[in-house]
């Protein structure tokens, strides 16, 4: 089952580094299990969408992504959300440390 997310957003070299973990089975058509995988991931910075990803079943189980945003400051609000092929979704919100 799809479960909790974890996120860390930090300033590194003048940019914002976002690392996010999603608990998700990401099962493939080859696995013999029902196809179940995250299809879209959206990153928002202070409420504005800055990154939209479309993903396939080839992303590993419990996906971990790193993204980089130009500049940024401590306290910026970062939100990451996902939606899978079964319509399940989850989101996490945090601030840049």
């Amino acid at each position, binding site marked *: 089952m799809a479960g909790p997310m974890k996120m860390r957003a930090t300033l590194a070299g003048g940019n914002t580094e976002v690392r996010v973990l999603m608990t998700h089975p990401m099962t493939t058509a080859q*696995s013999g299990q029902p196809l179940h995988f995250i299809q*879209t991931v*959206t990153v928002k910075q202070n409420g504005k969408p*800055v*990154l*939209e*990803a479309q993903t396939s079943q080839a992303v*590993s189980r419990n996906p971990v992504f790193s993204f980089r945003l130009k500049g940024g400051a401590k306290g910026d609000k970062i939100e990451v959300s996902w939606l899978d092929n079964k319509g399940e979704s989850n989101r996490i919100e945090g601030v840049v440390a």
Partner: protein
Amino acid sequence: MNSLRRTLLGALALTVLKPFAALAAWNNDAFGAKSAQDALKGIGATGAAPSKDIVIEAPQIAENGAVVPIEITSNIPGTTSIAVVIEKNPFPLAGKFDFTQSALPYVKLNVKMGETSDVRVVATAAGRHYAATKEIKVTIGGCGG
């Protein structure tokens, strides 16, 4: 079920589903493609020119095909999109990342690889496509997960 009820349910479904569709419609054609060429056609990224400005960091040999870390940076100015294509996977297109505003054309992710394959990264900048390729050898395939 009578037709009025069906119409109402249909309208309700549209109302509920529409925000997600507007967010980022998943590209069924491209992700369902069984060849790298068709996948790239599906996202409108054919005819990419080879570029040394796309940096792919990944292990040369991946012992476990279920978790292959790939780190991608595009140094091409104005890059708005990066697509990751694992040529020999049953469905080659692994992901497409669209960057706007402050997002830098960079992504690190873990992918599954069924066997040794070229991994092709296509970056799009100002409507033009650029590609770089790296071969990753896989000891144990990881598509059963």
